[in-house]
């Protein structure tokens, strides 16, 4: 039996106390333990930022990569060995800014990984610049006159790209978040959970109590996540009330399931076959 304790790691945690990331970390450990996935059977891939540091703070195989590039690393790893359980930890800047093109294409490919975006609507690690999801008008040290652009809507975008599992979580509700992560990991295909995550040091607008006063659980409203039309409507809600939970879910074939040579074996499981290669050479000659 796998327990949360198995995921404990002695490496010093480097987040500010009170940071929303702690809720995400504990929900991850709990859900993996409940899924009976042991630390040696999970690969966390992350980008750069406070979110990107997550894999260091639990026992697991990890690839802490570059700013914005986590999904490209995860894609390569999954194509090489689709038996890997891969979770990607990324920030709002990491995933929707620097890595925006990779985000778009990871959804299109429908590679079977779970993406957790720690969305604090700010650049945490670099000390408080605006991020793609920062509210319009938000003032920061670098945006002294307030953010001019409209915020990026990850949920609507994921839906528009055809993502088969789209959810929103809140780091302040770890019970719900744990459930969402479990469902996302079990989902075959690309799953995204955009997680509202208060940054206590730099985001003084979207605070813990700000989120708390707006979030509600779609499950409480008997919402059923099987209509794309309804999902789009839900994805637009923000100012008054913020819906959380699974917003859309649809079964479809994942990327590696659609590649014929991977039907029987993962790429890595094949044996080097000199006889076959000699045939290839004969054929071209």
């Amino acid at each position, binding site marked *: 039996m796998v327990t949360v304790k198995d995921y404990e790691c002695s*490496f010093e945690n*480097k987040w500010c106390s009170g940071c929303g990331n702690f809720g995400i970390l504990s929900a991850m450990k709990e859900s993996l333990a409940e899924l009976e996935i042991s*630390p*040696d*059977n*999970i*690969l966390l*891939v992350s980008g*750069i930022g406070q979110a990107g*540091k997550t*894999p*260091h703070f639990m*026992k*697991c*195989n*990890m*690839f*802490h*990569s*570059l700013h914005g*590039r986590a999904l*490209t*690393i*995860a*894609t*390569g*790893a*999954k*194509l*090489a*060995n689709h*038996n*890997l*359980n891969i979770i990607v930890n990324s920030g709002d800047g990491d995933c929707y800014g620097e890595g925006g*093109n*990779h985000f*778009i*294409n990871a959804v299109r490919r429908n590679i079977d990984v779970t993406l957790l975006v720690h969305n604090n609507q700010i650049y945490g690690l670099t000390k408080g610049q605006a991020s793609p999801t920062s509210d319009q008008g938000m003032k920061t040290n670098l945006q002294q006159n307030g953010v001019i652009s409209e915020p990026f809507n990850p949920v609507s975008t994921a839906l528009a790209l055809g993502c088969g599992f789209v959810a929103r979580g809140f780091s302040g509700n770890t019970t719900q978040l744990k459930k969402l992560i479990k469902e996302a990991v079990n989902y075959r295909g690309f799953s995204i959970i955009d997680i509202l995550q208060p940054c206590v040091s730099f985001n003084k607008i979207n605070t813990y109590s700000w989120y708390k006063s707006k979030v509600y659980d779609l499950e409480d409203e008997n919402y059923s996540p099987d209509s794309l039309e309804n999902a789009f409507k839900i994805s637009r809600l923000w100012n008054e009330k913020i819906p959380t939970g699974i917003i859309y879910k649809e079964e479809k074939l994942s990327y590696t399931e659609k*590649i014929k*040579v*991977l039907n029987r*074996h993962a*790429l*890595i499981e*094949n044996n*080097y*076959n*000199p006889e*076959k*290669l*000699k*045939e*290839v*050479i004969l*054929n*071209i*000659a």
Partner: protein
Amino acid sequence: MTFDISIKIGGEAGQGIQTVGNILTSVFQSAGLYTMAINDFESRVRGGHSFFQIRISDKPVNAPSHKIDILMALNQLTCKYHEKELTKDGIILSDARFFSEKDNIHFIPLTELSAKAGDKITSNTIAVGIILSLTGMPVRLLEDVLKFSFQKKGKDILEKNFKAAELGYDFASKFKYNLNLPADNFDNSRININGSKAIALGALASDCRFASFYPMSPATSVMKNLSAFSKDIPFIVEQAEDEIAAVNNIIGASFAGVRSITSTSGGGFCLMTEGLGLAAITETPVVIINAQRPGPATGLPTRTAQADLQFVIKSSQDDFPRFVFAPGSPEEAFKITQKAFYLSEKYQVPAIILTDQYLNDSLFTIEKGVLTIPENIKSFIIEDKELENPELYKRYKLTKNGISQRVLPCSGKAIVRVTGNEHDESGHISEDAENRNKMVNKRFVKMEGMIQEMSSPETFNKESDILMIGWGSSKYAIKEASDILIESGIDIGYIHFTDLWPFPFDMVTDLIKNKKLIMVEGNRSSQLGLLIMEQTGERFFETVLKYNGRPFYPNEICKQVKKILE
């Protein structure tokens, strides 16, 4: 050499010049002759001016010739640009539209003959028939090649092409002109191959199973070849959303345990340099092909250059070890690709192979025997059961030679942590000053082993007081130039570099001591010359430099060398 002739087919993009050229090259090759063909084209899909040039001999030929025996002009520009390249007895074959009355110009009614064959699109095959007739090749050889090329398109098309070949052949048999090349040595121990295919085969022979790329000339052809093979063997070619994704895809795949490759050209390589650093600091093996073209920025997309040497050696955040190779022929490309995979995995560092449009797109005749497939692949990956205590595994354990045991993620009890941040032995972020020194030194100490792996440059007549020095694809143009110069009474030698980084300075210092050195390079600043200067302290070079996007021709090297020696 009893004969050495060249044929040039020029015309607009979209007229099928490459098809004509490829078929002709195959026929000459099947007649047991040696061929070498270059492919010159503009960055456009229709119109403009392009050409395909084939050199044919009974002895190996591995560089283009500046003299043309038969010039087939499918547009007027071909006459204008290339008439001056004709040999004394050379002829022009030209379509009616720009027919003129000069003695050596022969009218070839392609439109009329193709109508007779039953389809306009057979005019290419008619052109082939005409040239084969004028060179004395049996028409039967063409039929075999046509079968191979058109079989898939159905019986009707094949029949029409047979007919077209015959019509062209018969038409030209009335000409007085005939080169009467021998076609009696049906030796099939050789094949025609370009650099791209040789690299692709080299990758397969290295047990590479994954490639990711973003299309960019002249690098795409490597991936096209791999993609064709992926129908028969477990190999995935992924077209990424950009070069940043491509290089990180292969880092991810290699981290997970599958040998991986990407190919790009200068601008794409720029986008990959961040990933190159990630491969370096995470100590993940990857092989990157940089097929050079003239820059900066978009430069000349379909043309050739040797101008990224300094860039690929130095491009990085901070400083880290890597391998850089530059093959000079398809044979070398095949072998060096395998060497790159082997060394990249052995030392857990990135390996870069520099090719260019000329090597990637030109056809060379090689012995089939060169393409040997190894029976086994040496793997440097460590399995859980080989570890004394997997629970204590540390990915970046400090060792004397800088190489730590590489275990794959999720392959056992060992936990594998890697990061692009500076890290401690266990793979966790570390900002400790002492640890930082240890880790930089750990990565750098590998250079001591790496330099031992470098082959010394190949030399020809190295005793001579005058030495030309080149690298990569210009090998045979320079080699031929040295042969011509020696024949004309000039004692000269040649040093050809393939293994460029870590720079084998010991071996080089001895070779160049007290010599007159002439750098022959496809760039403006003599990048290898600068590297030799930096690494050996040698300061005196003459240069033959070419950077107009075209490959080296032996005769132009001779001319410039003679001028230098005057």
